[in-house]
C-alpha cells in the first residue's frame, strides 16, 4: 500500500484548511486534538505529530484504491477491468450484482427511505447475531446524532436519510461495550475511511464486518441545520431530495423547497468527491430515481453477496433486475460526477493544492475520455 | 537577651522558591528572629503572581547602624536560602558573590516549560558542581525528603530554616528561631514545625562536620 509519512500538520494544510473535511469521523476521538461537535469537525490544537493516524485514515488524503480493492474484494478485484470502456464496473466499481431492491415481506413494517433496504438488512444482521452493534445516524433530520444501535428498536429509530454529514466513525474510538462485530451504514467517504482505518487497525474498525455504503452525490455542511431551524423546519420527520426539489415531511404535511435553496450548504469537500456509489462497501444502496418504493442495490463483496442471498431466502429482501433502460442513466450520472470532479481535481493537482487525487494519470484520462 | 554584633552591615539574605512553597512564612520567621536578636530588619517581598507558580523571592536585610532599603543590590547577597535548585541558581546569577553561602533544597519543582517539554531542566549534579565552583559554600539539603519523613512535604520550608540555623552562616540562635516558630505557626502544627526545624538543623550540621573532616 502506498502511504504518506505525514501527520496532523499536513492534514490541517491539505484537508481542513481547504475545506475538504468530509466529517466522516475517522480522525475524531482518537486523540485530544481533533474534536467534533455535532456535525462539525475541527483541529483545535497542533499536536506536532509528524506521522499520524489522522492523516492515514482520512478519505481525502492519498488513498491507494487498487490496494483497498484487493483488500475488500480479493480475487474479484483482479477480474475488475477498469479500462474496459463498455464495462459497467469501470464506472460503478466492483459489482457482483445490480438490482432494484426493497424490504421483503418478512422484514416487517417501518418507515424507511425508498425501499427500506438498508434498515431491513441491518435489522436482520443484528437479529441473527451476525453483528452485535450498528453504527448509524439517528434522530430527525434537524437533530441527527450518532447511534451505536444494539437492538432492533434502535436500528428502526435510525431510519431515513439525514443529508447532514455526521462523523459517526468517531464512535469506533469509544469503548464498544465488548461488541465483537459491528455494522456500518455510511457515506462513501466514510466507507473509504473505514477501509483505511481497518488497514492501520484504528480503534474498533477491525470489528466492522459489514459496511453498507449509501449513494451520495453530496451532503450538507454545518450551516444546514441552523438554517432548517431558522426556517421553522426543526421538527420535520423526514427529508427527501429529488432532481430539483427538497421535500420536508412533518407528519402528513409536505413542504417543498427548490433544491437551489439548500445547494449553498453542500460541503465543499463533496464537490471534489469522485466516489458517489461507495466503491469500497460490501453493499451500496441508493434511490432509483424511478420507482419510489425501491432502492438501487449494488452487491460488491463476497460478504455482501452472501448476505443478500440469505436475505432473499428469508424474505427479508425482495429484488428485481435493474431495468435495462435505466442503466445508461445510472452510468451517466455517476460518470458525470466523476468527470467533473476529476477535471477539477486535475486542475487543483496542478496547483499542488489538493493531496488526495489518488488515481493514476492513465485512470484519470480513461474516465475523462469516456 | 544578649545582643550579637553582625559580621558586616548589612547582612543580606535571599529566600527564594516557587509560589506556594511558603516563602513568606520563612521570611517572616527569619525577620522576626532578627528582631528578637535586636537587629534592625527590612524585608522586600516579590510575590506579584506568587500563587500562580511563578518564582518568588524575599530579600531580608539585617543591620545595626543605619537603615537600608528593601532590595539587595546586584551581587551582594551573603546567604541564599533556596527551596528549589533552579530558583536558587537564578538568584546566584543576579545576587551572588564569591563568598555567598548557598543553602538549597535539592528537590526540583519543574517549570511549566519543562513539563511541556519545551525547555530542559539542568542535571542537578552539573548545576551543583557549577555553583560550588562559583561561591564559597553550597549546602545541599534534601529538605522535601526530610519533610516527607514527617508526613508533610509542605514543611520543607521550615526544614530549610533549620538548615539555615545549622549552617552557621548567620549569627542566629536556634532557640530564638524556635521561639519565633512557636509564635508564627498555628498551634496545631507547632510540634510538626519544630521537628522540621531540627531535622534541617541536624542535616546542615552533619554536612558541615563531614566537610571539616
Amino acid at each position: 500500500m502506498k502511504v504518506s509519512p505525514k501527520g496532523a500538520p499536513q492534514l490541517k494544510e491539505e484537508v481542513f484548511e481547504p475545506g475538504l473535511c468530509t466529517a466522516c469521523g475517522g480522525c475524531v476521538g482518537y486523540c485530544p486534538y481533533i474534536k467534533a461537535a455535532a456535525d462539525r469537525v475541527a483541529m483545535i490544537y497542533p499536536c506536532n505529530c509528524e506521522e499520524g493516524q489522522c492523516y492515514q485514515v482520512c478519505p481525502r488524503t492519498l488513498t491507494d484504491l487498487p490496494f483497498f480493492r484487493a483488500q475488500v474484494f480479493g480475487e474479484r478485484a483482479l477480474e475488475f477491468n477498469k479500462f474496459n470502456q463498455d464495462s459497467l464496473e469501470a464506472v460503478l466499481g466492483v459489482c457482483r450484482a445490480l438490482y432494484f431492491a426493497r424490504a421483503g415481506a418478512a422484514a416487517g413494517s417501518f418507515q424507511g427511505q425508498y425501499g427500506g433496504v438498508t434498515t431491513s438488512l441491518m435489522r436482520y444482521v443484528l437479529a441473527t447475531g451476525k453483528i452485535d452493534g450498528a453504527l448509524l445516524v439517528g434522530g430527525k433530520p434537524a437533530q441527527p446524532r450518532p447511534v451505536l444501535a444494539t437492538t432492533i428498536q434502535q436500528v428502526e429509530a435510525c431510519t431515513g436519510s439525514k443529508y447532514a454529514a455526521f462523523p459517526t466513525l468517531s464512535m469506533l474510538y469509544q469503548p464498544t461495550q465488548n461488541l465483537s462485530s459491528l455494522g456500518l451504514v455510511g457515506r462513501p467517504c466514510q466507507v473509504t475511511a473505514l477501509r483505511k482505518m481497518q488497514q492501520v487497525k484504528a480503534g474498533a474498525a477491525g470489528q466492522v464486518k459489514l459496511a453498507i455504503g449509501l449513494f451520495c452525490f453530496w451532503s450538507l455542511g454545518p450551516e444546514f441545520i441552523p438554517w432548517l431551524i431558522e426556517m421553522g423546519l426543526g421538527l420535520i420527520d423526514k427529508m427527501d431530495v429529488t432532481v430539483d426539489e427538497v421535500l420536508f415531511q412533518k407528519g402528513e404535511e409536505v413542504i417543498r423547497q427548490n433544491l437551489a435553496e439548500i445547494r449553498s450548504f453542500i460541503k465543499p469537500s463533496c464537490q471534489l468527491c469522485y466516489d458517489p456509489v461507495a466503491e469500497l462497501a460490501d453493499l451500496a444502496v441508493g434511490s432509483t430515481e424511478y420507482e419510489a418504493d425501491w432502492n438501487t442495490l449494488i452487491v460488491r463483496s463476497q460478504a455482501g453477496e452472501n448476505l443478500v442471498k440469505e436475505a432473499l431466502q428469508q424474505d427479508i429482501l425482495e429484488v428485481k433486475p435493474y431495468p435495462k433502460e435505466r442503466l445508461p442513466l445510472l452510468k451517466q450520472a455517476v460518470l458525470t460526477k466523476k468527470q467533473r470532479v476529476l477535471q477539477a481535481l486535475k486542475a487543483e493537482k496542478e496547483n499542488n493544492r489538493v493531496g488526495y487525487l489518488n488515481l493514476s494519470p492513465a485512470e484519470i484520462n480513461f474516465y475523462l475520455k469516456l | 537577651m544578649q545582643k550579637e554584633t553582625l559580621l558586616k552591615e548589612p547582612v543580606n539574605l535571599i529566600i527564594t522558591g516557587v509560589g506556594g512553597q511558603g516563602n513568606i512564612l520563612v521570611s517572616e520567621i527569619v525577620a522576626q528572629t532578627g528582631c528578637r536578636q535586636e537587629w534592625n530588619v527590612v524585608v522586600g517581598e516579590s510575590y506579584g503572581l506568587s500563587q500562580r507558580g511563578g518564582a518568588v523571592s524575599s530579600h531580608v536585610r539585617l543591620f545595626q547602624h543605619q537603615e537600608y532599603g528593601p532590595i539587595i543590590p546586584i551581587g551582594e547577597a551573603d546567604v541564599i536560602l533556596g527551596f528549589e535548585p533552579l530558583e536558587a541558581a537564578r538568584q546566584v546569577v543576579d545576587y551572588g558573590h564569591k563568598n555567598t553561602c548557598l543553602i538549597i533544597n535539592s528537590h526540583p519543582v519543574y517549570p511549566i516549560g519543562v513539563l511541556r517539554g519545551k525547555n530542559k531542566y539542568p542535571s542537578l549534579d552539573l548545576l551543583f558542581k557549577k555553583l560550588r565552583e562559583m561561591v564559597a559554600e553550597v549546602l545541599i539539603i534534601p529538605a522535601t525528603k526530610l519533610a516527607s519523613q514527617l508526613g508533610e512535604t509542605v514543611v520543607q520550608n521550615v526544614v530549610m530554616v533549620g538548615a539555615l540555623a545549622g549552617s552557621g552562616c548567620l549569627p542566629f540562635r536556634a532557640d530564638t528561631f524556635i521561639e519565633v516558630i512557636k509564635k508564627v505557626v498555628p498551634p496545631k502544627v507547632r510540634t510538626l514545625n519544630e521537628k522540621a526545624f531540627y531535622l534541617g538543623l541536624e542535616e546542615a550540621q552533619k554536612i558541615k562536620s563531614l566537610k571539616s573532616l
Partner: protein
Amino acid sequence: MGWQDIVREEPGKQVLLNGNEAMARGALEAGVHFVSAYPGSPSSEVTGVLAQVSKNFNFYVEWSVNEIVALEGAAGASFAGLRALCTMKADGLNVAYDFLTSMNLGGCRGGLVLVVADDPFGHSSLKEYDSRFLAAAAWVPVLEPSTVQEARDMVKWAFALSEQIKGPVIVRSVTRISHSRGIVTLKAMKQMAQEADFKPTQQFHTFARFHQEVRERLKQVEELFAVSPFNFSFGPEKADLTVFTCGTGWLYTKEALFSLQLEDQIKIVRPGTPFPLPKQFILGHLSGTKKVVFIEETRPFLEEKVLALYALHSENLSQIKFYGKATGHVAGLRGPECGEMNTDIVREVLARLTGRPYHASAAPLTKEEKKSLQALLPPRDYVLCPGCPHRASFWVVKSALALEGNNGMVIGDIGCYSMGAMETGFNLFNTLHCMGASAGIANGLSKLQSYGFKQPVVAMVGDSTFYHAVIPALINGRWNKANYLCIVLDNGVTAMTGHQPHPGSGKNAVGEEAEVISIEEVAKSLGFMVKVSDPFRYTEAIHDVLKLIRMPGLKILILRQPCALVANREQKRRKVVVRQELCRGDACGCMRFCTRVWGCPANVWDKKHEVAAIDPAICVGCGVCIELCPAGAIVWEGND
C-alpha cells in the same frame, strides 16, 4: 502574623509589619471609623487586615463593589464628620477619579484619606503608572512615604491634615512599601467614640465656582507642608551635587552614598509631600547647588515640578544641571521615565557623575560565570494553579471556537484569568485591558457586521469583574442590540487579590453572612438569555458555548466552579492516578497532551518510564484530565 501586632495597645513596642499593615495601624492610631475598598495588588492587605480586626474596635469595614463606590461611601462617612479610609491600587484611582475630582471641589469634613498603591514595574499589574500625576491634576495633596514606619506616620497624619484643610488627602504607596516589612514603633491608638452627624444645613456640592477655594486650600496645604517634618535633608549643608528623592528612593540613595563613601559630599533632599510641592523648602536646597539628581519611582513627577519651579526662580539661582528620568540620565530596567528604583541604579548614576568607582565588599562573580550559569536555567512562566477551573474554561472556549470555525475573537478581562493571554491560558485572548473592558469592546466589535466583520465574539469576565464594571456594558449591549457571548468565569471569590469576598460570595468583608447577589438573577432581570455550565464537564460546556454563540443577540454563559485554592481547602480531595500501561505518551493519539498542552502542574511526566503521572502532592482532584485523556489512562483511584 501582622494582624496580631497591629492591634497591640503597647505604645513604644517595636513590631515588624509590612507597609500595608503599617498603614492599617496608622488608620487605627488615627481612630478611623469607616473603611472601604476594592481589592487590588499591592494595596489589598490594608483593608484586608482592618477587616480582620474591625470587631476588636467596632469600626465599619466593607469590600465595595468597585473603587468609586468605595470612595463615595467613605466620603459619606466624612461628610458626617467621621474619619474614613479608602484604599485602592493605582488602576482603581482611575475608577474612583470622577468622584474624587468632584468631591475635592466641595470638600469634606471628617478626615478622608485615600491610600493609593502604585505598582512600579508592574509586578502584579498589567501596567505601571504614577498616581501622583492624577492626584495633582485633581488638586488633591499627596504624601509619599519612604519606609514602612513612615507609611504608618503619614496615614495617621493624613487624617488630621484632611480635617484641617477640609479636603481629601492621598497617601501614595508603592509595591516596595506595601509589600516590604520593616520595624514600626507603635504609638497609642485613638479612642473611637464619635457620633455621626450630618446637619440639614450642611452642604457638600460640586460647582465650578469652587475652583478658587480649592486653590486657596492648596496654598494652605503648602504652608503646612513647609514646616512638615516629612520634608527633610541629609548630609552636608552645602553640596555641589544634591539628590532630590521621593518615596523608596530615599533609602536606596542613602545606601548608594554610603557604599561610595560620598555621604559627606552629596546632600540628599527628601520631600515627603510631593504635591503641592513645598516650594520654599525646595528653593532653599536648590540654592547653592550645581548639579541635581532626581531619584523617584515610575515617572518623573518631582523632577518636572522642581524643573518648573527652577524655571520660575532661575534669576535668583545659579546655573544648575539636572539629571533625572525626564532627562534620560536615570533609567530603570526598562529605560527612562518608567520603572522601579534600586540602589544599583542610584549608585551607577552617582558613580558616573562623581567619577567615584564602586568597590563591592565581596569579590563579584565574573560575567562568564554568570553567563554560563544563566545558560543552564530554563525560565519559569506563570501558570494557572493545579485544578484551576479557568484552565478548563479556556480549553472549552478554545475548542468551541475551533469547532465553530469562523475565527472567533476572545476579549479578555482582569483577574487570574488574565492569564488567558499567556501560554498557560492557551494564548486565548485577543485583547486584554482593564476591569470591564471586555464587554465594552465586544459590544463594539459585534456592531461591525455592516463593515464586514462577521467573526463571532466572546467576552470572558470574572465574577468579581462582573459586579465591578461589566453590568453597564451589558446593559449597553442589550440596548444597542449587540451580538456576542459573554462568559462569566464564576469561581466564587475575588481570587487574584487574595480571595476577598464579592457580592456573590454570601459573605462580607468581616465574614458575616450576606445576601447573595446572583449573577444569573441579575442577568435574567436585565432580560438576557442565561445559561449556567460546569467547565469541568468539557463536552457539555463546549456544546453550550457553541449553541449560545449561534443564537442571535447578547447571551450570558456562567461557567461555574469554585477557585481550586478554596476548593482544596474546603473539600476532601479525590485521588487521581495514571494507569501507566494505557498511557500513549509521546505517540500519535496523545503526544503528551496532559503535560505538553493541558499544562496542569499536577500532570507530570515520568521520565524513567516515559509515561504520564500525577503529582499527588499538588493534584486537587478536579478530574478534568480524566475526561481529556484520550487513552483513558487517567482514572480515579479505585477505578484502576
